[in-house]
């Protein structure tokens, strides 16, 4: 018997350890669920970590209202299948109650508005810890993020003053009103996620697989035709064979031309890809430090 683990098993063991630390150290933790592959992975790892007990966290969806229909269908089925509680924080409601103002113009997006809805939802349900599926390989500001990320009473991240994180000893202590963001799959790469999902045979939303869709090109990003995205007169819709590498709000999620129809096809495609997955995210293209700025304000 050789006592070696492959990298996927090593990552799984680490993530399960983090999920159990959250259950042990916090009173009222939740999983932030976006409907994308990363939050699906976190949810399945949580199921493994606590089986045969149910997942001890609700799923919290910060809903911009600008969804792909498939995302909502998948979410509702998953909630039923795993018998977990779902809480929806609505950006539309934040707009209607005047908490935030909708952006205007062609590239209007509700991504930034999510922060207010998220912080309001945390306050309403008194969550002391929110877990997310963010990974350090995704984006340069996230490469500096801790597993246990301390947020002040305004939900803000102070990147220059992060708590040191040593060995596997996670310090979740805080004062009243503060809270934590925890990222159990920090060390996974996009390829690791797909390899693991394939290895485990986990059913994924249809948007990730190749399909025909009416899309148009905006600044090099293929956006889905949708009532939520106002089109410029010069933009032309065409039917193409595409899939999505990331799934988020419909206004900022770009499609890629792809014929990958199975998990194995996707793994092959990701392994040979020449661009990163966030290359198609309009929300990251706004400035060199747009993710860092959003995180400081309290974003995921």
């Amino acid at each position, binding site marked *: 018997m050789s006592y070696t683990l492959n990298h*996927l098993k090593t990552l799984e*063991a*680490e993530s399960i350890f983090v999920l159990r630390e959250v259950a042990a150290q916090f009173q009222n933790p939740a999983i932030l669920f976006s409907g994308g592959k990363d939050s699906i992975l976190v949810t399945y790892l949580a199921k493994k970590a606590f089986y*045969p007990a149910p997942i001890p966290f609700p799923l919290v969806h910060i809903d911009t209202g600008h969804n792909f229909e498939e995302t909502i269908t998948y979410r509702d089925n998953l909630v039923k299948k795993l018998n977990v509680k779902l809480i929806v924080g609505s950006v539309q409601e934040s707009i209607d109650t005047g908490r935030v103002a909708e952006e205007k113009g062609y590239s209007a997006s509700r991504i930034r508005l999510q922060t207010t809805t998220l912080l309001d939802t945390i306050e309403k349900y008194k969550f002391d810890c929110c877990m997310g599926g963010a990974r350090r390989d995704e984006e340069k500001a996230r490469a500096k993020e801790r597993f246990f990320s301390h947020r002040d009473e305004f939900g803000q991240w102070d990147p220059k003053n992060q708590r040191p994180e*040593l*060995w596997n000893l996670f310090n979740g202590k805080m004062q009243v009103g503060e809270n934590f963001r925890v990222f159990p799959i920090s060390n996974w790469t996009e390829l690791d996620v797909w390899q693991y999902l394939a290895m485990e045979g986990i059913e994924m939303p249809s948007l990730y697989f190749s399909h025909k869709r009416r899309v148009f090109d905006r600044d090099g990003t293929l956006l889905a035709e949708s009532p939520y995205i106002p089109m410029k007169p010069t933009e032309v819709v065409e039917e193409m064979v595409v899939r999505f590498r990331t799934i988020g709000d419909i206004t900022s999620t770009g499609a890629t031309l792809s014929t990958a129809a199975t998990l194995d096809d996707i793994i092959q495609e990701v*392994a040979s890809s020449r661009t990163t997955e966030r290359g198609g995210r309009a929300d990251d293209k706004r400035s060199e430090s747009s993710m860092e700025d959003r995180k400081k304000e309290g974003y995921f």
Partner: protein
Amino acid sequence: MTTSEIRNPQSEIFDSNSYLNMELLRFTTAGSVDDGKSTLIGRLLYDSKSIFEDQYENIKATSERRGESTVNLALFTDGLKAEREQGITIDVAYRYFSTPKRKFIIADTPGHIQYTRNMVTGASTANLAIILVDARQGIVEQTRRHSIIASLLGIPHIAVCINKMDLVNHEEAVFNNIVAEYREFATRLKTKDIHFIPISALNGDNVVHRSENMKWCEGVTLMYLLENIHIASDINHIDMRFPVQYVVRPYSDEFHDYRGYAGRISSGVIRKGDKVIVLPSGFTSTVKSVELDGKELKEAFAPLSVTVQLEDDIDISRGDMLVREGNVPKQSQDIEAMVCWMGEKPIQLNGKYFLKHTSKEVRAVVKEIKYKMDINSLHRITENPSIGMNDVGRISLRTTAPLCFDAYTKNRDTGSFILIEEGSNVTVGACMIID
């Protein structure tokens, strides 16, 4: 480098089943901008085809905007706005790449003395440390400091990369002199496995590809070392230690009497039928099952996360530890440890702190500050030692409840703990238990 030279990352080498045999290696690099650390990381990523087009385009555009004549690969490793503006590394950044043999996690840490705490953070989970030496400068204070920290944190392997060989005409004698000087210094380190590689990160010599300019070098390239160094034995597979992290009680009709102890194995192997002792209570029982997600495992070993059921119904909670009869850790309320201090206020004699060790949390009082260590020379300062931020020293602690521990040199998991300041709740001390 131009865009057309960027090849498809990983594509030539990828076989969809190969990943099932890939190991994970974590390594740390410490250094400042001038010694070529960022260039080395950029070189490793570029030559292993791990830089993507959009990332490359991004840093190329930034380099041009700043009026730099070449594409500055250091921009790829610096994440925060302040770091890019000042051209320095402030915090630990994690980087990922893989080859057909292994997946790698780089903890890229700043090298200045005022960032010792970040270096320690990166080093705490690493299998290997890359120590960069500028061939023109030889061994300097920073080289010694990084090596001492790697040794103190128990990193099993060190790769000393003598960089900028192109600036000393690739001369073997320069390399040999530095190796001799380092070996002399390294007799005081605990690290047993040390490798020396002459490289030029700028030109790529001996990083991924063998050097044409240093045919005299019979050793391996850095990438070969990273891909092949034996790490499976870095984990202790002898002394079984299972800290209970969480108790799984479903309270459902189907699993009415189910009581599972969830945790991550710190070291050793655990099997069904093993006789175990529960610490600190001392009760004994037999392992009924080792499982994960409802699937029973024949055996499990570190660092797997599993759930263990016992034959007997005994009171066990988070912070307890399962061990094997005949192989128990030490138990004491008096702890001797080396500390790397991270707090803004110096360590307080008779001060009280929260202490986190495996899954257990207690309070501790500092009984004695024995000495402060000069981390550039290993010299001990015993006269009125004060341990402030970024200092390393030896302390004695008394805890409110006994800890079950091993020496850090035997077990990085059960031999380490952190101290947390009361009030601010900030992690202020990284501690390694001495025999």
